């Protein structure tokens, strides 16, 4: 039987793109994603002043702080160590460290190094405990209380301020090619993190240990050192965000990253939400820092669109919650479909 098909001719039994999508992901996933995309694009087109360069920059800038923290946290999640519930408190400790050093007149460079050293110790301590077998949730909950307590005690719960000019304005308020430097830093950190994960031995080990800890151990890659390294990365990202924010407002307070009433909700929860919305596997081994970066931009985009449509904080918090639930359902269905096909 001749099965050759001429160039440009469609085989009668070849399914169309929609059928292929359905075949691969199931009707439910396709309908859910289609509904979401229609809603998203409708909102985008009808939002006043949404499609402008200025607003685009606003979205990226808005995503930067959460995005940088999410990129750091992605390393922890990919390595199979769930989440650090101390992201916000690490940032609180770091911002007090930075502002205290700045207010004492040590200058930006020394204050930066001092803050990063604090972050490395904070991350390293958590990593050691997790690497020794501690439950990441319990360990980081405890660490959160410890860091916040130290920061509160250190600052006496007061705002620590330092006067301008202080040499850190370039990071907090400066810009490069029309983009705020914090946005530029977010892009650089996201790209470097993705390259590290994709093309370095360390990156491959993160995936290996996250996907199969036993296999990692058998090949000589223990979770102990991996937990320490990834926790340090996440803490360093938190500290960087703290430094950038403190440089912007020339002050620090332990509650700068707590937002009990804010539309963004709690910073740690928002960072975890960003990693989740991006479809990274909570069990580790699957995902990427690029996904987390895009997750941050995506949440920022939806939030921005809703502000432009005149929604106040309540519906916007609801929207973020719905997006998390939606992404968990869709990615779970997609993965289940993949396993069935295998």
């Amino acid at each position, binding site marked *: 039987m001749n099965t050759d098909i001429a160039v440009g001719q469609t085989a009668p039994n070849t399914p169309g793109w929609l059928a292929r999508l359905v075949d691969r992901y199931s009707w439910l996933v396709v309908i859910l994603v289609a509904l979401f995309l229609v809603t998203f694009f409708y909102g985008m087109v009808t939002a006043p002043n949404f499609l402008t360069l*200025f607003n685009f920059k606003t979205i990226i800038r808005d995503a930067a702080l959460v995005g940088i923290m999410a990129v750091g946290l992605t390393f922890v999640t990919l390595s199979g160590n769930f989440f650090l519930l101390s992201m916000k408190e690490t940032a609180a400790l770091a911002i007090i460290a930075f502002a205290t050093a700045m207010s004492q007149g040590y200058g930006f460079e020394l204050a930066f190094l001092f803050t990063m050293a604090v972050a490395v110790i904070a991350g390293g301590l958590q990593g050691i405990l997790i690497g020794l077998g501690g439950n990441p949730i319990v360990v980081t909950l405890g660490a959160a209380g410890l860091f916040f307590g130290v920061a509160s005690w250190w600052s006496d*719960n007061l705002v620590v301020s330092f006067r301008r000019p202080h040499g850190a304005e370039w990071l907090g308020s400066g810009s490069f090619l029309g983009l705020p430097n914090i946005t530029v830093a977010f892009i650089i950190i996201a790209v470097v993190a993705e390259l590290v994960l994709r093309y370095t031995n360390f990156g491959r080990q993160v995936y290996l240990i996250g996907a199969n800890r036993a296999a990692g151990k058998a090949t000589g890659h223990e979770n102990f050192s991996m937990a320490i390294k990834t926790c340090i990365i996440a803490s360093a990202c938190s500290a960087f965000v703290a430094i950038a924010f403190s440089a912007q407002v*020339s002050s620090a307070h332990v509650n*700068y*990253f707590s937002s009990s*009433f804010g539309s963004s909700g709690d910073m740690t929860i928002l960072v975890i939400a960003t990693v989740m919305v991006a479809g990274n596997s909570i069990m580790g081994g699957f995902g990427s820092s690029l996904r987390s970066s895009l997750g941050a931009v995506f949440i920022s985009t939806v939030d921005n669109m809703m*502000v432009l449509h005149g929604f106040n904080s309540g519906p916007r918090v609801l929207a973020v919650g719905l997006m998390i639930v939606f992404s968990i359902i869709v990615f779970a269905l997609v993965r289940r479909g993949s396993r069935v096909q295998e």
Partner: protein
Amino acid sequence: MSYFRKVVGLATAVCMAVGVMSTAVYAQKKGSIVSFNGPAGEAYIGRFIKGIKGTAELKGFDIKVYENQFNQAEQDQQVQQVLAAGVLPDVFIWWPSDATAGLGSLRALHKTGVPVLKINQLPNEADKKYIFGYAGPDDRLRARNAGYMMREAAAAKKAAGGTSFNVIALSYPHSYGGYGLSINAFKDAIAGSDLKIIGDVDEGFGQANGYKGAAKLIASVKDQGIDFVYGMDDAILTGGIKALEEAGYKMGTDVIAVGTVCNGDKQLIEEGKQFGTTLQSPLHEGQLAIKLVEEYLETGKLANYINFTPNPSVTKETIETTALKGYDGKLYGISELCSGAW
């Protein structure tokens, strides 16, 4: 007598001696106070606690402070714990996390027969029968003063040939009780002037939310022109000013900013980037609370049921000379009265 009996006898004697001494010390106190309020980690509340503790000590009161993390359920639990302990103070100070949800706890405190002083949130119809008075800020007066300051700035702009008077408001979450009082008082104050509110965003409390909210609002109303910005408090406004600067506005020239509460950045007023603010001193609020407790315990009533802390306007011209006499008799300058980077 056995060695054991000697030890027990000695321990009993020591305990009795300590007990008698403590009772004597306690008897010298004018009374005891239990305060239920938010966390010291919040800059404003931190200073409030310093105010009540310092003044209570000065006036000879014994005080215990129970902090909750802006959580009514936690505060309710603390109330139950205090009541279950069975040792009642002479006065309760009640700063509810949520005045409506906390009504049950307030009723429980009232049922003990111990007088209750409400703090910070104006009494409402439901709770005023359970308290003997109120001490705290006047959200309306504060916002009205901000409105008058903005009118003054608008009049100066008009006299200089200005023709555009668009205002954006950086607000508390709309669900927060202070929002309605503040925005209505501000609107009343600017009514009849050239000022016109063209946008209102409620991202949340604090600098970070102020920045994010303002950035989105700027994108939304940039086309109409932004001439004035009203910050419902200075912390929110500080973030908003950064967003406006990043968007290319020159503060003090292109856009005139007015805030309230005095919890932002002093340098912004000194540099002319913020036209002014209205003082709301947490230290004063704490001192006022103890003064009212003393007055009530001595006379059995208060001269005034509602007792507001003063809210004078503060501008670049008055910043160094603004001072208030505390209820401890000392004179406090602006740096001690404010709660932000001052």
